[in-house]
């Protein structure tokens, strides 16, 4: 049977559509949640079996959505293995190992955050479908950031993610801190997006293209494109043919001189780099563009804080890596010291500021800033080990940070906020399991073996030694010491202080599952890192 409409959809899904199918599925699930939310506000109040099905209906739907999307992602992986990287929509999105690795990470983070949100929203009395829809939309944005191969798509992905986060941050409408955090986040986020867009526009102005591959050629005097342009300047039939090809496919190249971009117009090239870098440093919260992070982390609902700190950061790093490893790869020597300086500043400020925090969420905000410093150091060395290290570090970071925040979320009970250090007092007596898990996550965040966090740091340090950045390496390892100190402030409160009259901690099943997954990965990736290093190898095509 041939129905033109179905056929068109089918051929679309086998062509360009396949490259964004995981994102489309998430979007559909998100829209579905919104529609059901609008249409059946009150009809859910049924009894019996319906009540069981409709209990946490939105969360369940969103979770199923991530599972669907992950399944599609898995099938895409098979296709990539057989046919090589998939490219779609005139090379504006690409499905490669890099995308699959990061998309998988985003989906895992989203699923875990959904699991952690259910009980939290119940306590906050904000059980709205929009929340889960926004989580899914944010995830779509992040996946597009990882798969985007065109400045426009990247920017759209970034904004999709950021807009969802602005709303999610202010989701507790009755909470002043949440509102304040959302406003700060919107203002600074919009500001940084603007800077990033300005950088992108200069890149476009210099090269006449928004495609990442062409951009990377344009900034690399030794690329095939540069040679082709040289050829097109020659008189004769060869040059003529090349000029014709350019005229039809990439007209800007006729006026482009690759060596000029870097050497005769260094100011513009440098401005483009600086603006893009600043925009992205804002997003990953690197010093000195980190000020929004502690306030937003503290004010946002804790599951959203978790999501921002792991997924948003990882997605921004995916975008940053994509650009820095392609467009700016040839000029590595030039920006090395800039990024190195930012990394050291980030490490210093993140670690020192964390020392005096009394709010766990704020403390973890500063700690996550210091983690950015370590990851940026990987970018400084920039060899293969460093790339694997960055992949491994981000992977470990996602799970250990979710775990750490999950314990704070579990502490949120009726009548207790649970995010001050004092609220952790005597956690060991109140809930030994949570205290033990907290210890594992703190050790991992500090980088004590045998945990995932140590392995991430291991690769980064090794890469610094390999590229002879010994001084940076010494700086970086010594920052483990203050880091351990503030992580152990949390441990001191949880393990060594006496509990006041705080009630026992009750953990819901969903929270237990999320914590279980997080602790399993954190320990497995530390005790037997082999499969996880292979994963990181896969992400960076080695």
């Amino acid at each position: 049977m041939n129905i033109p409409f179905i056929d068109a959809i089918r051929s679309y899904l086998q062509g360009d559509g396949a490259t964004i199918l995981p994102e489309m599925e998430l979007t559909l699930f998100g829209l579905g949640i919104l529609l059901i939310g609008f249409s059946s506000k009150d009809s859910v109040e049924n009894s019996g079996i319906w009540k069981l099905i409709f209990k946490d209906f939105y969360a369940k739907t969103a979770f199923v959505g991530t599972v669907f999307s992950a399944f599609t992602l898995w099938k895409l992986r098979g296709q990539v293995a057989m046919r090589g990287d998939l490219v779609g929509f005139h090379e504006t999105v690409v499905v490669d190992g890099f995308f699959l690795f990061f998309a998988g990470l985003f989906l895992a983070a989203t699923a875990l955050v959904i699991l952690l949100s259910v009980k939290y929203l119940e306590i906050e009395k904000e059980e709205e479908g929009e929340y889960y829809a926004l989580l899914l939309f944010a995830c779509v944005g992040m996946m597009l950031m990882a798969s985007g191969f065109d400045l426009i798509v990247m920017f759209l992905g970034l904004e999709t993610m950021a807009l969802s986060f602005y709303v999610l941050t202010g989701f507790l409408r009755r909470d002043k801190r949440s509102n304040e955090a959302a406003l700060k986040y919107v203002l600074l986020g919009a500001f940084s997006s603007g800077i990033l867009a300005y950088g992108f526009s200069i890149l476009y102005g210099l090269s006449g293209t928004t495609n990442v591959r062409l951009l990377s050629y344009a900034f690399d005097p030794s690329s095939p494109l540069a040679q082709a342009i040289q050829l097109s300047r020659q008189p004769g039939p060869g040059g003529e043919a090349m000029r014709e090809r350019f005229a039809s496919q990439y007209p800007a190249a006729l006026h482009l001189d690759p060596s000029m971009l870097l050497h005769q117009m260094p100011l513009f090239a440098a401005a483009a780099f600086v603006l893009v870098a600043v925009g992205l440093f804002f997003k990953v919260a690197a010093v000195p563009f980190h000020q929004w992070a502690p306030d937003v982390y503290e004010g946002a609902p804790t599951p959203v804080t978790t999501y921002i700190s792991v997924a948003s950061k990882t997605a921004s790093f995916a975008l940053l890596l994509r650009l820095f490893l392609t467009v700016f790869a040839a000029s590595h020597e030039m920006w090395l010291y800039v990024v190195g300086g930012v990394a050291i500043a980030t490490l210093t400020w993140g670690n020192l500021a964390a020392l005096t925090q009394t709010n766990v969420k704020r403390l973890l905000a500063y700690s996550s800033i210091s983690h950015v410093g370590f990851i940026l150091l990987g970018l400084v060395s920039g060899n293969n080990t460093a790339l694997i290290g960055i992949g491994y570090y981000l992977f470990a970071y996602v799970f250990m940070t979710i775990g750490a925040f999950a314990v704070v979320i579990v502490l949120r009970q009726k009548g207790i906020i649970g995010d001050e250090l004092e609220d952790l007092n005597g956690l060991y007596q109140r809930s030994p399991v949570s205290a033990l898990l907290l210890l594992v996550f703190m050790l991992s965040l500090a980088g004590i073996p045998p945990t995932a966090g140590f392995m991430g740091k291991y690769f980064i340090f090794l890469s610094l030694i390999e590229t002879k950045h010994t001084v940076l390496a010494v700086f970086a390892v010594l920052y483990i010491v203050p880091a351990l100190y503030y992580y152990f402030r949390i441990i001191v409160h949880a393990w060594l202080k006496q509990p006041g009259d705080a009630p026992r901690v009750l953990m819901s099943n969903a929270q237990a599952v999320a914590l279980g997954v997080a602790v399993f990965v954190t320990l497995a990736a530390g005790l037997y890192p082999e499969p996880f290093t292979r994963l990181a190898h896969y992400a960076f095509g080695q």
Partner: protein
Amino acid sequence: MDFFAHHILSVVLFTPLVGALILLFVPREQDSVPRLVGNVFGVLGFLVSLPLVHWWHSDWGGFTFEENADWIPSIGARYHLGIDGISLLLVMLTTFLGMIAIFSSWSAIKLRQKEYYILLLLLQVGMIGVFVSLDFFLFYVFWEVMLVPMYFLIGVWGSDRRLYAAIKFFLYTLAGSVVMLLAILALYFYAPAAADGSRTFDVPTLLAAVKDFPDSLRVWLFWGFFFAFAIKVPMFPFHTWLPDAHTEAPTAGSVILAGVLLKMGTYGFIRFSLPLLPTDTVLRARIIHIVIVLSLIGIIYGALVCLMQKDMKRLIAYSSVSHLGFCTLGIFALNPNGLSGSVLQQINHGISTGALFLIVGVLYERRHTRLISEFGGLATPMPNFAAIYLIISLSSLGMPLLNGFIGEFTILQGAFQVSKAWAAWGSLGVVLGAAYLLWLYQRVMFGPVTNPINEKLPDLNAREYATLIPLVILAFWIGIYPKPFFAFIEKPLERIVHQVNPGFYGAEHAKLPPLEMQPAVVETK
């Protein structure tokens, strides 16, 4: 049995872990069960390590009982275990002192017993792991893992300033070990890769590769490792964590800290730092000079500070600084006498200082104070205790016929062979050691009973005898007949001296009278 024989080191390493895992599932309400399980596994841990001694052959100089399996192939880290005579003695010391430390907690620990025994057993795993790993990655993992249980032992069951002492201990040790991590990574990276480009963390391979390293790199690597070990030992001026940690820790924690943990530093010096010494004589002499001077300062400074202490435990803690100074002095004398004396002194220190901490523990359990001024004339109510305490004090200060004498004498002999000045300063430490230990003994045990509460203190009970008597027997054994102990370490140390001080044996031979003596020709007709 065959499996046991082939995996003896894994069995020794993981027996305490099994105990800890079993304890994890013991319900909290059962008070006496954790204590029982903890002790059973303490004893079991010692028993399974005994075959190591039984199967040992004194001709073995290299690593034996090796186990080698893949762990993280992509980075070349392997599960590689193996011991030589030096690590064997330290493993035995660990399992033995571990058993005694666990037993000594029988009535001292009443709070959170289950967790206490879990942590002690985990600590055992970490310490044994450090001594048996032959893979740098594995070594580093155990080195760090061990910090966590010790932190909690001090932080939960310690005395008043426990939180401060615990985090200080953790941070100091961590600061040293992260620098060591960099040195390990540098060693890993600069060693030539295998034919297929893969790299390795294998200890024997990497230490053999050091031979071809330029001296400048060796110096860097040496200092990289040095800080980790010097903090652990602890050498002057890195010792300030030690008095706090030892003083605040519970008795068993202090026994393990002094008895075993500090030896990880000296072990690291012998195993990893010595091969990294540069070959250039000027550079090498400069490094050795620095280390020796720090050791001598440690010996004398530690002893002088001991004289000033008001707290018994703090006094014994500082005495460790002094005694460990002897160990590093012996190691960096770089000759067989110095090294073997140093290894034996490490064992001796474990025995006598461990026993001294137990003795303070005995007093603390009775009086809940450690201040010297609270005691006096205890020999009257506690005569048997007085006898044992005297033997241990004499053993610690190096009285002939007891173990301390053998160690210190051999070390000083080794130091003397290199420089008479080193030996002279070292001997001053021995004198001061006698002074502070005997003075302490005098103030606590002799004279009239000054404090009426002390008049009715009960003498040692059966359990306390059981923890102290084995240590006393060992002290006598090593003091009277140390040959079996030296037999373990003779061959491995010979190899080390050959590797790091190749000129030594040649020079020694030159000093001997020529072998071809003219036979006295007797004219017979």
